[in-house]
């Protein structure tokens, strides 16, 4: 199990470095096509949105609304108020932990 995680860590590391080096090394025309640029700009948005949603509203293969949803709601308000990253993350954890302490979710 641990070796699987190491495999993922090293594959991610090698792949991420390769992607960075490719950008510095490849001729510009390869990545300069408008559609390729749009895909590159939109992919992080789609993935981060999907990750935020599934991390909050699912457990395994089940869709759930539990104390994590309140944590995410806190995060939305904190981000609108331009709170720093750490406040957003710790606040979301604290709200969730607090509700669980009260016996919900």
């Amino acid at each position, binding site marked *: 199990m641990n070796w699987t*995680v190491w*495999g*993922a*860590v*090293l*594959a*991610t*590391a*090698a*792949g*991420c*470095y390769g992607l*960075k080096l490719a*950008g*510095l*090394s*490849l001729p*510009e025309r390869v*990545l*300069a096509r408008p*559609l390729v640029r*749009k*895909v*590159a*700009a*939109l*992919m*992080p*948005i*789609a*993935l*981060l*949105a*999907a*990750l*935020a*949603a*599934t*991390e*909050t*509203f699912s457990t395994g*293969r089940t*869709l759930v609304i539990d104390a*994590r949803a*309140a*944590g*995410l709601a806190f*995060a939305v308000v904190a*981000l609108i108020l331009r709170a720093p*990253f*750490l406040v*957003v*993350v*710790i606040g*979301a*954890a604290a*709200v969730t*932990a*607090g509700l*669980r302490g009260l016996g919900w979710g």
Partner: protein
Amino acid sequence: MVRNAAGVGVAVGTYGVSYGALATSSGLTIAQACALSVLAFTGGSQFALVGVLGAGGSAVSGTATALLLGARNSFYGLRLAPVLNVRGLRRLFAAQLVIDETTAMTIAQDDPRAARLAFWSTGVAVFVFWNVATLLGAVGAHALGDPKKLGLDAAVGAAFLALLWPRLRGRTAWITAAVAVVVALGLVPVLTPGVPVLIAGIVTVAVVAPLAREPVA
């Protein structure tokens, strides 16, 4: 300039503490959390890998999500290459420092000399702060105990939202995010954890990108 770089480094350090804490609470060892910060050194992809693994996703879907997210660094490299003008060994070092923060600081400069100074000073500062912070976060969370009791599972979702937030500018960005959320949650009941995110990313971009008319950065 160097003071700005240190400022960015400190700010990034706060992400690093969160990443280190969430990585170990997702089941990575402290060594694995730190190795990823040194070797991958790109926050979004690192959060993605530990998020998918922590949610019970496979190593393959976690890695694939991390790499799709890391592909943006290729485009940063493309923009930085003419400014940095690095060859050989220097290019190999420079490549590792091609991330959101160094790109933003570098392209904000007017002349090439200042741009190169911004790149290297920001890159080194962020690398140092990111890795020290990862270690602190990983060791700290390890000492704190049960991650669920501390609400750290909710912190993962909040972290992704915080990474997404500055990118949500313009109609196309909002539509992309909304479609991805619907597709991902729709697929949760039918697919192994981790795979819905991957498919949501690919399907959403495949549908939205050709239709998007406004130029995207």
